[in-house]
């Protein structure tokens, strides 16, 4: 195990050293799911920080009406790239790639995933795709200015580097598909003896449901992106009314993927929360099977509601009705999870450490985002708030307040196990507090601005919105400071902090039963599972 005062990563033990290989080649050509998980973690989290920077720049521009630090073309490019980076380079690949890879095989009692080389290949494809996207920003006509949604007709006509950017996203899509295939196969085939489906940790269940969406929905994105390129380079005119095409069909194809994609973003996050809450309440999760059912239901029902992004597009009234109704249906399984998490807390023995604090915050922020989602899902009210900052507030609540905070929770919960060292608690709590305050000042203000009528993706706005925009920007600075403290505290702790050994959190899932850090093979012998994932009493853990 790691000695108290050494600072060398190669003396951490476990999978860091036991393969006998060293150097960068032993990492970027490794087929060990833990190394690949860390590769994904650093690359996706790195892109998250880039996205944060872009967001802060946007907020500075929006601080006051008129031009503040940039012109309109730059602004359009900036919000496009902010979206592309956050969505395709961080949120979609992030959870599956990093924590899915790090933790899931150990949670099911396996040595690795079903296709370890494919796993490595997935990461390489992700990096190549990311590189292509980055290249698109600095070549040709410059970064795309269409918004991350690439709507026609603008995306077919703009002179910016849409084709290359979209090609990069296409490549990253392959990474997502291959990871999905790998995870479904792994969870079906490599569970240890005694690890029946209803003994799986809920994080693994969430990864399973997510993997299915990756398999079934991502190909539609792939063909949609190819069709944009064809529209631009070949003049196919499939979405051009002048050639018989229908621009609304682009929106259908785009959202058939991109709506399920938001469930790719949220399901693993919900899975983390389902794993963390029981551990820090010392109580089994309330309604395990209902949470499993709700994860599958969200994946399934989430594939039926894409039209709710298109209420004002010129779609038929019938479609508006159907999609609005189904949108309310898909809210139900999410609500089930919230009720079950809260019920788990009831009469639990709660300890408010950083993972738990982030997890509890997830419940609050995700619920707020979910409620604003209902306002958006009701077609009548959506007419008023569509394409305003109300929408921007909504999705930041669910994706940042939800997935983002769950990602931070997972970082504090699991990374110490893989490093053998931990962060300092007090700075983590301070960071959390600042982020919580800053986040709500920033995004709740947006919900108000949206209700008042401030459009999204506009470079400028009416003077009556100026005060609230200034407030929002100040919120973004508080949030950024909190983020900075969190990042510094976490990484300083992982590299040089207090040793973290064994099972200090008292988890009952298999990743807590292996040495710290886990050895390359995870288990000396394949484990035989005799208890459920939240069966604290059964394991003798107090």
């Amino acid at each position, binding site marked *: 195990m790691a000695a108290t005062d050494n600072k060398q990563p190669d003396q951490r033990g476990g999978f860091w050293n036991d393969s006998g290989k060293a150097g960068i080649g032993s990492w970027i050509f490794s087929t060990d799911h833990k190394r690949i998980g860390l590769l994904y973690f650093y690359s996706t989290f790195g892109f998250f920080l880039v996205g944060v920077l872009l967001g802060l720049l946007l907020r500075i521009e929006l601080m006051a009406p008129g031009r503040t630090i940039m012109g309109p073309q730059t602004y359009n490019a900036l919000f496009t790239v902010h979206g592309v980076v956050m969505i395709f380079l961080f949120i979609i690949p992030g959870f599956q790639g990093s924590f899915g890879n790090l933790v899931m095989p150990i949670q099911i009692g396996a040595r690795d995933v079903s296709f370890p080389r494919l796993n490595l290949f997935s990461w390489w494809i992700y990096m190549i795709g990311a590189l292509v996207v980055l290249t698109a920003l600095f070549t040709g006509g410059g970064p795309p200015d269409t918004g991350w949604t690439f709507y026609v007709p603008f995306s077919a006509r703009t002179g910016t580097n849409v084709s290359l950017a979209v090609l990069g996203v296409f490549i990253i899509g392959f990474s997502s598909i291959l990871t999905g295939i790998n995870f479904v196969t792994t969870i079906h085939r490599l569970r240890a003896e005694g690890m029946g489906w209803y003994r799986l940790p809920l994080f693994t269940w969430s990864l399973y449901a997510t993997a299915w969406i990756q398999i*079934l929905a991502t190909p*539609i994105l792939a063909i949609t992106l190819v069709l944009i390129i064809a529209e631009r380079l070949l003049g196919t005119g499939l979405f051009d009314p002048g050639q018989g095409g229908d621009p609304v*069909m682009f929106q259908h194809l785009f959202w058939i993927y991109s709506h399920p994609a938001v469930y790719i973003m949220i399901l693993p996050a919900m899975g983390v929360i389902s794993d963390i809450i029981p551990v820090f309440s010392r109580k089994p999760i309330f309604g395990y099977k209902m949470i499993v059912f709700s994860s599958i239901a969200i994946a399934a029902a989430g*594939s039926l509601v894409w039209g709710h992004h298109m209420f004002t597009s010129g779609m038929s009234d*019938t*479609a508006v009705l159907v*999609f609005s109704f189904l949108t309310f249906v898909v809210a139900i399984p999410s609500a089930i999870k919230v009720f079950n998490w809260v019920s788990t807390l009831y009469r639990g023995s709660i300890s408010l450490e950083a993972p738990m604090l982030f997890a509890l915050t997830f419940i609050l922020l995700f619920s707020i985002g979910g409620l604003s989602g209902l306002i958006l899902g009701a077609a009548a009210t959506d007419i008023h708030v569509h394409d305003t900052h109300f929408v921007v507030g909504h999705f930041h609540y669910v994706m940042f307040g939800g997935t983002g905070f769950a990602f931070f929770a997972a970082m504090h919960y699991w990374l110490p196990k893989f490093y053998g060292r931990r962060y300092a608690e007090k700075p983590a709590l301070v960071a959390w507090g600042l982020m919580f305050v800053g986040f709500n000042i920033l995004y709740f203000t947006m919900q108000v601005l949206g209700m008042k009528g401030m459009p999204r993706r506009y470079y400028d706005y009416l003077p009556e919105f100026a005060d609230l925009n200034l407030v929002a920007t100040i919120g973004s600075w508080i949030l950024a400071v909190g983020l900075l403290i969190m990042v510094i505290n976490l990484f300083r702790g992982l590299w040089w902090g207090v040793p973290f050994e064994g099972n200090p959190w008292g988890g009952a899932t298999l990743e807590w039963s292996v040495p710290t850090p886990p050895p390359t093979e995870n288990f000396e012998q394949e484990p035989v599972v005799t208890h459920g994932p939240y069966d604290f009493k059964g394991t003798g853990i107090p």
Partner: protein
Amino acid sequence: MKSENSSAHILSYGKLVATWLTLLALTALTVAITRLDLGSYKVWGALAIACLKSGLVIAIFMHMRYEGRLLRLLLFVALLTLSIFIGFTFFDVLYR
């Protein structure tokens, strides 16, 4: 390590050729059906035969007939998903 391959089901050449002949016959039928004056039902007729042909390819050539329930269920899920994508799009397109 003894792999599980050796106990797998082996399809005889005869069965494969018989399937192929059936597929050829169905192809001829597809062409014939579209020569008839059935109006818009031509498309549905041709599609129905295409479904039959693909069913044969999946069941015999791709061995699905001899696979377990899981794989068949998963294929059904994939096909259902595609049908929903097409069907729900028509909620819009048909009623504009």
